[in-house]
């Protein structure tokens, strides 16, 4: 092991970026400058007030920037350099699956036949797009072991809401009035928030000492009022719940629906399927397991997969495939008329641009490649865990639940806080100086000083070694002088920011200059 070269331990010599004052595009505006030139008005031009009643017209223009094209490009390029991205270095952000984003996918998504296709185009003249969506649906059905798919939800949280509305429609159709949805205390925050939006009441179930659902607690919570149980498996602790069959039997036993939060599907592709585990509804995050770039916080896409009994309630429009006659091939259409459907969840057909990228990803890897991706993700996580089980990390950042992990694992910084007087936050900030994006911190909530680490399959063994070495070096610094961590970072474009003032006295837009 080579010790990493230690970054600065003070901010005495500000970098170029640190010396630069952040100026917004509005502050770069100079009256009279412009970038766009519009086509000339080639029809008879009349003043607006002759076309539209004056009381409906705007009196003062919006204060948008007045800025030239070169200045726009420079402004946003310089801004981009103030971001850490996947190409800056490892990004082991737990529960986010920061895998490589293949550039082929960007290329095929930009083809005019995809990017320039109007969403209201007559389906007869959008056959390629509908076939792509059909093929993606069939692929996701295979991967999840569930029969029917809707690609419509825009993100994981949207898929969750869809799943809960499907649950409601299913129970209503059976004449049941159910009120409760059970979620483990380790769940993503979107789960309980979606439950509330869908008009259900949250019932929490505890985690047992092995990191799975506490079966005794579940037994005492399950009754005829339970509409659904939402579960992530492997869960947010990176632990596969071995009792899943029993959990499913308990929930199904009272007529409830089992919902799979697919945020962690990257652990089990080709190894196990939510449908085979007994789940009835599942959402997938195409921006996690299926390589859609995260875009700094979107766009995503959250298709849902369901069993036959839930399928009649899926959102419309549905993609349909019609067998061709004699010499013509199959054709594809949009079906708007499903009487038991919950209806639409958004405009048009969903985030098609994301479908193109994820479909290209699935076709590039094939069944074997997807399985290899999950296996390597789990291998990488366990390798990193074994590295971090030794030395200082093993002492100060122990594993929260001591088991073989799946694609991610959760460490507890409680000993570091007690013995070194540094918080998980301080370790995370110091990692920035070492050139790594920190893991997810302070989640899940039930682990004290949590660090949630998900390296993904696209990191190399060397980069995992470097990360482990950096964490060891940081803990060595903390042994020597914890203040180094508490004041970190030193090398980033800005240093620790005053979040309290930003929430106490919110400044949420550039003030007008006058």
């Amino acid at each position: 092991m080579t010790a990493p070269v230690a970054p600065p331990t003070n901010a005495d010599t500000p970098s170029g970026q640190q010396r630069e004052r952040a100026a917004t595009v509005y502050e770069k505006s100079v009256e009279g400058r412009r970038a766009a030139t519009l086509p000339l008005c080639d029809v008879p031009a009349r003043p607006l007030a002759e076309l539209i009643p004056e009381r409906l017209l705007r009196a003062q223009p919006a204060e948008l920037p007045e800025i030239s094209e070169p200045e726009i490009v420079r402004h946003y390029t310089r801004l981009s350099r103030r971001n850490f991205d996947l190409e800056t270095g490892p990004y082991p952000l737990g529960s986010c699956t920061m895998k490589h984003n293949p550039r082929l996918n960007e290329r095929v998504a930009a083809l005019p036949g995809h990017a320039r296709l109007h969403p209201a185009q007559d389906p007869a003249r959008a056959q390629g797009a509908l076939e792509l969506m059909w093929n993606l649906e069939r692929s996701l059905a295979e991967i999840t072991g569930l029969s029917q798919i809707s690609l419509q939800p825009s993100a994981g949280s949207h898929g969750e809401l869809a799943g809960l509305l499907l649950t409601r429609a299913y129970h209503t159709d059976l004449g049941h009035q159910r009120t409760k949805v059970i979620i483990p205390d380790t769940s993503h925050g979107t789960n309980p928030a979606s439950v509330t939006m869908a008009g259900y009441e949250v019932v929490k179930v505890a985690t047992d000492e092995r990191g799975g659902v506490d079966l005794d607690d579940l037994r005492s919570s399950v009754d005829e009022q339970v509409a659904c149980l939402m579960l992530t498996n492997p869960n947010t602790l990176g632990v596969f719940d071995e009792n899943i069959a029993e959990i499913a039997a308990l929930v199904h036993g009272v007529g409830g629906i089992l919902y799979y939060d697919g945020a962690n599907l990257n652990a089990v592709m080709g190894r196990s399927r939510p449908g085979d585990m007994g789940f009835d509804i599942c959402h997938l995050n195409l921006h996690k397991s299926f390589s859609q770039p995260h875009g700094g916080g979107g766009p995503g896409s959250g298709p849902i997969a369901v069993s036959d009994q839930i399928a009649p309630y899926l959102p419309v429009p549905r993609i349909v495939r019609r067998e061709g006659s004699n010499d013509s091939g199959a054709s594809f259409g949009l079906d708007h008329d499903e009487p038991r459907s919950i209806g639409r969840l958004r405009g048009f057909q969903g985030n098609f641009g994301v479908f193109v990228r994820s479909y290209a990803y699935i076709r590039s890897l094939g069944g074997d490649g997807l399985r290899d991706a999950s296996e390597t993700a789990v291998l990488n996580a366990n390798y990193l865990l074994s590295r971090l089980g030794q030395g200082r990390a093993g002492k100060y950042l122990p594993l929260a639940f001591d088991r073989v992990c799946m694609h991610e694992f959760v460490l507890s910084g409680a000993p570091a806080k007690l013995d070194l007087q540094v918080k998980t936050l301080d370790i995370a900030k110091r990692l920035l100086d070492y050139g790594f994006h920190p893991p997810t911190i302070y989640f899940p909530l039930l682990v004290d000083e949590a660090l949630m680490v998900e390296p993904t399959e696209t990191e190399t063994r060397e980069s995992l070694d470097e990360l482990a070495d950096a964490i060891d070096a940081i803990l060595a610094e903390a042994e020597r002088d914890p203040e180094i961590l508490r004041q970190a970072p030193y090398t980033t474009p800005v240093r620790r920011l005053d979040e309290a003032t930003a929430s106490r006295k919110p400044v949420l837009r550039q003030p007008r200059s006058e």
Partner: protein
Amino acid sequence: MSRYTSATDADRSAMLGAIGVDSIDELFAAIPPDLRLEGPIDLPDGLSETECFDHLAALAARNSHADAEACFLGAGMYDHYVPALVDAITQRSEFLTPYTPYQAEVSQGGLQVMFEFQTAISELTALPVANASLYEGPSSVASAAYLALGATKRSKLVVSRGLHPHSRETLRTYARGFGAEVVEVGLDDGATGAAELAGAVDDETAAVIVQNPNFLGVIEDLAELAAVAESAGAMAVAAVDPISLGVLRPPGECGIEIALGEGQPLGNRLDFGGPSFGFFAATEQHLRRMPGRIAGETTDVDGRRGFVMALQTREQHIRREKATHNICTSQALNALAGVIYLSWLGKRGLVELGELLANRTAYAVERLTAIEGVELLHEAPVLREFAVRVDAPVQGVLDRCAGDGIAAGYPLGREYPEYEDGLLVAITERRSKDDIDRLADSLARALRAADGELAAHSARKSPKAEVSA
């Protein structure tokens, strides 16, 4: 080793050794044997990059796109020109690949973009606070309704029939979860009827939701509709076309409390409907109930200006079941395209674009209504989209125009049975006078051909007489 991974056989055995297991299978031992997938996923084998490109290109080639025909389709998404600099900037890895800016010190680019975006939306809508984007248009309507239900503790939502059909359908889907009643108010000569609206609004009404310009392209009198809402203590909500806000009176000046909309027209691709972004702006008093991410300005320990995610206690990762909304992922990259586009158009460009659209649209109205068999549905003011009635089955007309390389418009019949012969025509700066002339000629030919084939149909319906009656 598969595509996009690096582990060689040597790596794998060294790593397994370090872990202390003999095989990959042991790492999956927690999965009960009967839940393990034996055998591969039943999917086609992986493709090489060139094969995969060819496959996707072959699919794309079967779509008739807006570079291959003159596209007069609108209905919420529009074929505006996306300047090259938008692609160049949004494809930069630094914007393309990061996650949500959880570590503010290394996310200043993204956070400042959010702040700039919020400023632009606040300017466009003339409302003081805006978030950093939502999924897209129609679900943003449902989000506004959710806010209104919580803020007013009322249970009824009154929506105009001029609100996009997708928005109304989405709202109804969500409302079954919220437990809210949705009441629809009809159109009166193309615009939302103020009198009918007043009749539908009562002291249980949480929000009145309208759209401007409405789905038929008609410019609504937002101030009049907002006054009706206010008189009943209901929140006035408007879905607005951002391009229109260069020239139309902004919602914040009309008494609208929440303005939202579909952001696709601002520098985003058509993409067969997504991804794009939704925007959401409100009066100050609704700030703490806003859905989605919001960036705020602050300083770092050395006094440097910086940006952070503000007011996070509203959000699901903190407040969980009591959050103001369940949204996590927003549409950061699409919103970035939006703010770059608005900077590119600039203060004067957005106004000039609105003027150009209004004049081209007026020309298109004149050209099309001069055709025998084409009538305006309504004589109301429009900006960039208008609805006509054609004297022939719409699908046949559209098919004929498609043969001329023209996507002539959006058929209204499925969503508005009362306009069975209705066609919604959208104009952008990409549709020149020549394109409009071609559309008019093609439409005229299509109608003549239909007339010949379907003489019986025309005789029976006599639509000219119907309109004047």
